[in-house]
């Protein structure tokens, strides 16, 4: 298991060092600094073995987080834990920066004591942790309160405490999708997939049981077989390749009955993640035309076409066209939005605030190049694009979300529910 956990700043100074196992010495702290942080070459692997000691690291902003072990640990678990650790710290004190870590080092030690015992991850749910790791000093908890804390930390429903009350029972569902695309210059889709997630904000009293319905093919068919939904089969369904659920969802029930049922945590959390690859409606098409006219000049023309209902509006559109390193100047003409050449990023950035469906826009650029004796060809990185659209490109639909709370006197009808669909660009690239 994890033998120790270190946090460094970008210079390699230790901010936090917590050793859990006897086989990890203080020299491990230095070994990582010397061999990884101060290494001359860029790190080629997130796992490093130095003198029979393995170091797992992740780097976020200027902070290095390293877990150390001498055993054959579960590597996926170590990384998942480090990521979770970042999440926990963020929820306690915001951005994980050197300053924040130094300001909260006592808290971090307390957290590390709680969430890792002898290198074994324990309950890392922030909601629960916040109930008893508070940094407010003296604890005046009554016996009942203490018992409640411990039963929550270890409990079967470790993500929700008892006795939550709201005057207004309300829930919000956000369907957030990231469209990923890799397209060849000729407009052939090389790979495309949608990574979606359903984020839920629940403000519900008591211990409500929820049932969630979506237009997944398999789930719909399971329903049809049961016969209660057969008449409304006119709806389109989509094929979800794979989905993952928050730990509150009863996985066995999903496997056997194809039903998504759960007792939600209080507040905001990610209910499910899914992935689809079939029948994705790509909101934009990028048509590049790059022409290297001689050694000192290059002409670029890029057309973008929006491909969705004219009544909808896409927002925050940004097209990023890479330019060669030896670019000396760029002249730009665009029909819509604003375009700029950013020398520091080696790219032309073209921004459009809004764009309706079924429209087309174009930018043309003349790139002047410095003459170089550099033999190596410019590798032409792909043109990438960012956008946000108010629909789910995968066709994902929420069919229902039913709430049952048997002990308290509110019913499904009393709950106010909101659903919103957002489609965003993930890696949306077209080669040129």
């Amino acid at each position: 298991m994890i033998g120790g956990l270190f946090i460094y700043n970008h210079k390699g100074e230790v901010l936090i060092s917590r050793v859990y196992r006897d086989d990890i010495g203080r020299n491990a702290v230095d070994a990582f600094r010397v061999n990884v942080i101060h290494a001359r070459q860029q790190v080629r692997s997130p796992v490093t073995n130095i003198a029979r000691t393995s170091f797992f690291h992740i780097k976020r902003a200027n902070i290095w987080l390293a877990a150390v072990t001498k055993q054959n640990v579960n590597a996926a678990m170590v990384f998942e834990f480090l990521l979770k650790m970042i999440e926990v710290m963020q929820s306690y004190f915001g951005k994980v920066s050197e300053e924040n870590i130094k300001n909260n080092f006592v808290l971090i030690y307390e957290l590390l004591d709680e969430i890792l015992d002898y290198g074994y991850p324990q309950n890392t749910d922030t909601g629960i942790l916040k109930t008893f790791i508070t940094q407010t000093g003296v604890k005046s908890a009554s016996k009942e309160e203490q018992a409640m804390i411990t039963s929550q930390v270890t409990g079967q429903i470790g993500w929700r405490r008892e006795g939550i009350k709201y005057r207004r029972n309300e829930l919000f569902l956000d369907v957030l999708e990231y469209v990923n695309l890799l397209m060849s210059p000729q407009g052939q889709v090389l790979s495309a997939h949608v990574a979606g997630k359903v984020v839920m904000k629940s403000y519900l009293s008591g211990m409500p049981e929820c049932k969630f319905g979506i237009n997944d093919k398999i789930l719909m068919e399971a329903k049809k077989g049961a016969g209660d939904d057969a008449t409304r089969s006119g709806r389109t369904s989509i094929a979800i390749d794979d989905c993952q659920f928050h730990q509150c969802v009863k996985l066995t029930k999903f496997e056997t009955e194809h039903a998504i049922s759960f007792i939600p945590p209080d507040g905001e959390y990610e209910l499910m993640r899914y992935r689809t690859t079939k029948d994705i409606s790509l909101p934009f098409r990028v048509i590049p035309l790059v022409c290297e006219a001689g050694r000192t000049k290059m002409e670029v023309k890029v057309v973008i076409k929006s491909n969705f209902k004219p009544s909808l509006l896409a927002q925050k559109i940004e097209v990023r066209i890479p330019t060669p390193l030896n670019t000396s100047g760029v002249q730009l003409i665009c029909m819509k939005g604003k375009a700029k050449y950013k020398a520091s990023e080696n790219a032309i950035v073209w921004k459009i605030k809004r764009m309706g469906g079924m429209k087309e826009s174009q930018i043309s650029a003349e790139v002047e190049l410095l003459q170089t004796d550099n033999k190596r060809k410019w590798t032409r990185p792909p043109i990438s694009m960012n956008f946000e659209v108010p629909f789910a490109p995968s066709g994902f639909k929420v069919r229902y979300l039913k709430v049952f709370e048997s002990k308290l006197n509110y019913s499904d009808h009393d709950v106010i529910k909101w659903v919103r669909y957002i489609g965003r660009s993930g890696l949306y690239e077209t080669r040129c």
Partner: protein
Amino acid sequence: MTDARYFTTTKKGEIFELKSELNSEKKEKKREAVKKVIASMTVGKDVSALFPDVVNCMQTDNLELKKLVYLYLMNYAKSQPDMAIMAVNTFVKDCEDSNPLIRALAVRTMGCIRVDKITEYLCEPLRKCLLDEDPYVRKTAAVCVAKLHDINASLVEDQGFLDQLKELLSDSNPMVVANAVAALTEINETSRSGNPLMEMNAQTINKLLTALNECTEWGQVFILDSLSNYNPKDEREAQSICERITPRLAHANAAVVLSAVKVLMRFMELMPSDSEFVTNITKKLSPPLVTLLSSEPEVQYVALRNINLVVQKRPDILKNEMKVFFVKYNDPIYVKLEKLDIMIRLANQSNIAQVLSELKEYATEVDVDFVRKAVRAIGRCAIKVEQSSERCVSTLLDLIQTKVNYVVQEAIVVIKDIFRKYPNKYESIISTLCENLDTLDEPEARASMIWIIGEYAERIDNADELLESFLEGFHDENSQVQLQLLTAIVKLFLKRPSDTQELVQQVLSLATQDSDNPDLRDRGFIYWRLLSTDPAAAKEVVLAEKPLISEETDLLEPTLLDELVCHISSLASVYHKPPSAFVEGRSAGFRRVPLKPDGSAAAAAAPVEETPQATVIPSQDSLIGDLLSLDLNPPASHTAPAATNVPSNVDLLGGGLDALTWMGGGVHSPAEGQFLCHLRDPHTHRPARPPLPAPSAQSPLPATAQSLPRRTSPLRSPLTASAAAAAVSGRVTSPITNLVTSGVTSHATSPVTSGFTVAGICTNPFLAGFLDEDTILTLATDGDELLLTDHRPLGGDSSSGAPAPAAGGGMGGGTSAGLLGDIFGITPTPSNYMPPKQVWLPAAKGKGLEVSGTFCRRAGRVSMELTLSNRAMQPMSGFALQMNKNSFGLVPAQPLQVPMPVQPNQSTDVSLPLENNGPVQRMEPITNLQVAIKNNIDVMYFACLVPAHVFFGEDGMMDKRVFLATWKEIPAQNEMQFTIANLAMTADAISTKLQKENVFTIAKRNVEGQDMLYLSIKFINGLWALLEIKVAPGSSNITLAIKCRTCEIAPDISNSVEAILRA
């Protein structure tokens, strides 16, 4: 003010100031002071002087402060054990506190304080906490048992904590169950007895599976990981577990998903591969694996390394998912490289077009490693998918046109492989390749180009000029290029003898006279001799038809793959190395894929019931039963499954290996474990890139006794020779056995560990795949002068050896072995040090049987040399031998073979290879070995001491830095000093002598006129020992210091070293 300021105080009187603050009356000030102390501790300052003052702050009702004090204690208690006692009372009191959080905190912290006196006090509170009413306390106590076990294992066993822990497996709280499982798994892995402490039965499994649905994500990982160690009793049980686990594949935590994948992959082995159930799981496994690719890059990396294993084990799972492995522009480089690897594995006829266009795209990227790998991948596609070879070749030509130096070189290397795979198809491009001759500066590319020229010499008009141009700088070339150049010119000569005579003379003299490289020189001599004796034979040897190269490359060796599949998601799967390669001590558990409980494997699965009782006399008293019952586990369990895995090897060899292979010199074997797979990998077909096992003296390649057909050595008849070959150490066993035994001619390979013995013929089909052509005979590097001087080349000086028989006709392994053995006139001798035989069982006690014997290390494993003397009146037969559990897990690798009955007053010598995979039990003294020997008269028992040196593994060469670090790490009290008196030897002589016995010199220093040697030993069970030898000039005494984690072994090491040196 914020807490950050604590990091900045660096004043001089700091400690003093802190001291007074810690003793302050004001609570607030105290708290501040403790925070400062912790901050100093974090940045590495020594604040241990404040110990008493900090401990004084312990008794507080402020939980935050208490935690800080505890944190301090955990850090410094070890350095101040006496002071730490002061804290005991508070701990004990806290364990009784009414607040469960405080109770848990106290027991959690106590477990982390590794001070004996504190540990004593821990037992009572721990016992109570394991039964605590609050689950939070119980789950903390469960982990604490694992901590205590690490400090003092016997205490845990004596105090009955294990039983208490096992009871927690049926706790009502899922998290308690999960932590108990985690603790038990860890204790199991480190347990010294080697016996599982946690008996998993259907009932426990059921409880675990129930808890699985309810506990935290981490708890699920613990449970799944421990389930993966379980061996279901039949297919049905495996199925039902799989069914209950598959829902985990939809979990958001990648670790849960991968651990579930591990269990499923392992249990699928128990089911017939064509069953519907397996097909179903196969379908279900693919989507979650693909989904892992959208996680954070670090998790992706782990996932990709594992997918690489999954794809090799079960290619079906992801066969339709090629596209998801396409590289994204912004992927970190480690993700890119892994994706590329998997892409090639998934490439097939249907998707090759897409793959190729991707690869072409990648070949224009920025990162050099990535580009190279992409180019190489194109070549691999050509070899793998025949229909695409044309496209691949033209793509490669396009890339060569880019003139980017490293792209061109990489392309030439792969084109050479394509030529090998499709001879006489793409020769038209040779001229294009030749245009780039001048730009090649990497040895591998140059060697490949030279190979191409030599191979197609008859079609290249100016081949002689081209090769001659290389010859000018012959001495500056890398040895790989030199060897290749030599061979290429000889080929050229054989093809166009008329105008190249001068050239061949030149290269032969360059190779034989002016070179220091023994491999080059020897290859030169052989060619020279061949050419001068019988050019026709030379032609047959050098221009022999080459075996085809295989499609799949870089595959993991099957048994390693099987083992790694059992370690999915763990570090082992990330490194693609068995845990023993990077984990110290016993915890490096070896895991096997469960055997199918049917057919022949059943015997291996249930060794106790199925063992051949006939060979063992029924027990006569309880002791016998004890002795015999546990070591009946035959090594067959290793060989049986593996045998089915490697048919290709056998084919290659069985088909008659007409080409003999030179084994490229100068390539050193990689770390243990690694080399095994290369050795067995029939697909290694390119020179030098994969580190080939070189039969040099340092090589851990198991030395195998060689039997020369003409010179039957008294010790080894051909039969035993092949048996000895089969006896190649532990994991290596099976395929090699197959290779050797099926290749009847028993051309065993061997770097006999002494300095200067000829190793014999290395008919290694894989190497034949690589460069060319010819057989190698290997000379170990150092002392070969001796051999070569009496072999002035050429001129038929028959004095030196037997006349080389005309090698026309089959240059089959057997004959060539004889031939070459004769050329050099050497009998391989086992040079390993063998202590004189001792009488182990006097005839009086042995009912007429006298057993004397000794141990030595042979062929990379321990060998027991026995002399059985019959002092009785009747012949003795039906010998069998068993060993009791012992410290190193020694068991016979094969039954004792005594060919004939031993007549009265006669004796016979037997050599019994041993393996070290048997049950382990610590003996007193540690090298004690209890043996039972049986014959037609009775069963006799005796005990003997095994000299330590036979346990020194061939892979004991420690990296210098590791050595230094380890030396520092092992505490000084583990160092033991010995003096070896009356032995005048130089440091170098000592070093050479010990090297032969696997005591490797890491460094030599001269300190104040004294020679200091630093040496390392690796025991076959993975234990390292570090040695320092001091040789004072003029003195006949040698001082030996031994550092080892287990110091009991030190005297044995010293004895062995002394014996070796005196031998």
